[in-house]
């Protein structure tokens, strides 16, 4: 297979995006273009990329070596060269596959969801730009090229969150997402620069880095590791940089499904896995990462319990699940983390698309307490949502169970009992809040009857595909107790962090615990919300509902603080001190002139006196000079 096709995986969506964007601008300013053309162009791109990805997958599966394609020198300074290069190895092709697959389904879904929207073409232009950036991120062969994709997805996220940009809230959310991500990027760049300084001059692609990273002292590696992880925190919404993700739900639901649940937010996990050679050397940073992940998981789950906005609940659950992934990658079990990325992509995309369908159906209402009893009206959505909710709650045989269980098991086996405990508890909470959402939305009593909107097939079909995926995705990573071949671990052998052999009985015991915990959560939710009475108006409030006031605290410290500082600088310092000093110097000079001007008093005798003074000073000078 020609390795240059790697570039086409990225280029196709990119070109598609460009063409769509140009057509859209043409369409709105000159002549209207039919939406069908947009749809066709838009959906073609991810599918083509997916097919190329499949071809690479098959080729790698048949034992081909990693594909490397370096079309040109990106930058060459001081004799050191950074190439624009793409790497198709097992990890990246794995990511390509699921990104393009999920991407394709969501494209189809979006074609239905966005139907008739004014910005139809724009939406797909952004969407394909996102695909291109994400694929660039995945396929890059060096951290710098990865960073191009990394920022590209951030930009698309911004654009798509603020898709309906006339509403201030959306744009503010977009800004927040971008800025918070930039804080992460700051870390990423610092890590990158340090890495370049220490090893990059020997070559800056992953291979070279892997070869030479051991030359760097551990203390430096620790800094690099933490700096890169800060980047991951931003992109993957971990404590303390998670605040943007819930707000990001302001974007259209397909965006939330694709970007803010399935793909982009997992970039951090992917990045850590990509740098496994680095993190393998610094397990203490990994542990820190795992703790951050665990606390993020717990914290987000707690907040999710009291939220009322269906998309926000899902957003917090995303943060929570991402926390699980970081537990895995932090503990060196990269393949396990990626496994969860994989299963999560399916069920979370499904959840969001289901939620989107619900939202559309009830006429753009997002508060679950204003829904209720939708089971009969939306039977298909009901059933796929059930599958997804079960999957996220960790109930076998749905996909989430396997991956989450494996993470918990890994945590236990690494003797990280606290993490294990948190993970387990979070699992219970997850089951609880997800079923709370589910029951309130689809069950309950005394709910109001609502006008239902029609759901097109292009929205329903992807739900089915993903439901299938959410059900069976877990089987690619069956634990040892069920199957000798864990496909994921096999495929990503290099990233599995060493086989952790566990006794079968222990393993089954752990599974049992997980299931019991998950069921417990469900039962509590059932009791509380299955027959939820919509007549009694309860207002959610309290510290948890208000997300522990973290947003407000951030706002106060950072936003207000910097705004005050900005005013201080431009008004007090610049205008008040520096400019004033300059101007008063000039004014002082002129005033001094006015004072001295009194010498021009037009009195002849005074003038003569000055002359005399001059002559006298000359005389004095001569006396001194001649002695």
């Amino acid at each position, binding site marked *: 297979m020609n390795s240059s096709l790697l570039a086409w995986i990225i280029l196709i969506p990119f070109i598609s995006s460009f063409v769509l964007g140009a057509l859209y601008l043409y369409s709105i300013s000159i002549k209207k273009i039919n939406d069908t053309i947009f749809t066709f162009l838009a959906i073609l791109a991810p599918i083509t990329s997916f097919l190329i990805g499949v071809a690479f997958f098959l080729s790698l599966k048949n034992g081909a070596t990693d594909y490397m394609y370096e079309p040109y020198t990106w930058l060459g300074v001081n004799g050191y060269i950074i190439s624009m290069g793409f790497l198709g190895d097992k990890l990246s092709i794995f990511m390509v596959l699921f990104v393009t697959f999920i991407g394709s389904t969501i494209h189809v879904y979006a074609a239905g969801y966005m139907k008739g929207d004014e910005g139809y073409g724009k939406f797909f232009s952004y969407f394909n730009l996102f695909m291109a950036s994400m694929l660039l991120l995945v396929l890059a062969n060096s951290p710098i090229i990865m960073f191009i994709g990394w920022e590209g997805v951030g930009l698309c996220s911004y654009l798509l969150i603020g898709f309906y940009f006339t509403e201030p809230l959306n744009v503010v959310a977009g800004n927040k997402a971008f800025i918070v991500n930039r804080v992460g990027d700051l870390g990423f760049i610092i890590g990158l620069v340090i890495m370049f300084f220490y090893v990059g001059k020997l070559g800056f692609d992953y291979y070279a880095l892997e070869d030479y990273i051991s030359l760097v002292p551990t203390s430096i590696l620790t800094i690099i590791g933490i700096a890169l992880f800060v980047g991951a925190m931003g992109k993957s919404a971990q404590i303390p940089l998670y605040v943007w993700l819930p707000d990001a739900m302001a974007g259209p639901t397909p965006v939330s499904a694709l970007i803010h649940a399935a793909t982009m937010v997992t970039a951090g996990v992917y990045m850590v896995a990509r740098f496994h050679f680095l993190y393998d050397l610094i397990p203490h940073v990994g542990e820190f990462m795992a703790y951050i992940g665990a606390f993020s998981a717990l914290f987000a789950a707690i907040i999710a319990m009291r939220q009322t906005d269906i998309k926000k609940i899902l957003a917090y659950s995303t943060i929570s699940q991402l926390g699980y992934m970081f537990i895995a990658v932090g503990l060196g079990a990269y393949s396990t983390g990626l496994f969860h990325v994989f299963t999560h992509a399916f069920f979370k995309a499904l959840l969001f698309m289901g939620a989107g369908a619900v939202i559309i159906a009830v006429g753009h209402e997002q508060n679950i307490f204003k829904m209720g009893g939708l089971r009969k009206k939306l039977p298909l959505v009901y059933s796929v949502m059930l599958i997804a909710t079960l999957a996220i709650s960790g109930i076998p045989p749905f996909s989430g169970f396997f991956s989450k269980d494996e993470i918990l098991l890994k945590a236990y086996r690494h003797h990280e009992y606290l993490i294990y405990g948190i993970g387990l508890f979070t699992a219970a909470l997850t089951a609880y809040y997800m079923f709370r959402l589910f029951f309130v939305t689809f069950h309950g009593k005394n709910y109001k009857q609502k006008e239902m909107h029609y759901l097109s097939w292009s929205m329903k079909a992807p739900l089915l595909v993903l439901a299938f995926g959410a059900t069976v995705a877990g089987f690619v990573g069956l634990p040892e107790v069920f199957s000798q071949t864990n496909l994921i671990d096999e495929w990503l052998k290099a990233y599995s962090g060493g086989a952790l052999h566990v006794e079968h009985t222990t393993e089954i015991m752990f599974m049992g615990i997980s299931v019991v915990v998950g069921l417990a959560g469900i039962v509590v939710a059932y009791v509380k919300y299955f027959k939820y009475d919509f007549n009694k108006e309860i207002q959610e409030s309290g510290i948890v509902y208000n997300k522990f006031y973290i947003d407000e605290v951030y706002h106060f410290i950072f936003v207000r603080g910097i705004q005050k500082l900005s005013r201080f600088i431009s008004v007090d310092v610049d205008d008040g001190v520096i400019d004033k000093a300059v101007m008063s110097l000039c004014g002082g000079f002129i*005033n001094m002139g006015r*004072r001295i*001007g*009194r*010498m021009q*008093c037009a*009195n002849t005798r005074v003038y003569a006196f000055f002359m*005399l003074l001059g002559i006298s000073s000359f005389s004095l000078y001569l006396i001194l000079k001649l002695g």
Partner: protein
Amino acid sequence: MIEASFISYISLAILLFSIGIMGLISRKNIFIIYMSIELMLNAINIIFVTLSKYFGSMDGQIIAMMVMAIAASEAAIFLSLIVAMYRLKHSVNIDDFNTLKQKDTL
């Protein structure tokens, strides 16, 4: 002998010159100012004449004559201006003439 009288003449010149300068800056009457200037010129004339005598050449004397001529022409200007000034202000006080004073001072 010649030495002593030389010093005396020069001293006289210095005295006259100093009186002239003092008159220039201390008196307000235009005429006196004019006379002070003439006094200074004549003091220099004395120097020239004395030197001429001392050197035994006529140069200095000639110069003195010519200075007188110049002083005369200056006098013409002086007197006509004084007339003009008196016409304008009916005053011979030099301090009354300050229309050209600097404006906008502090």
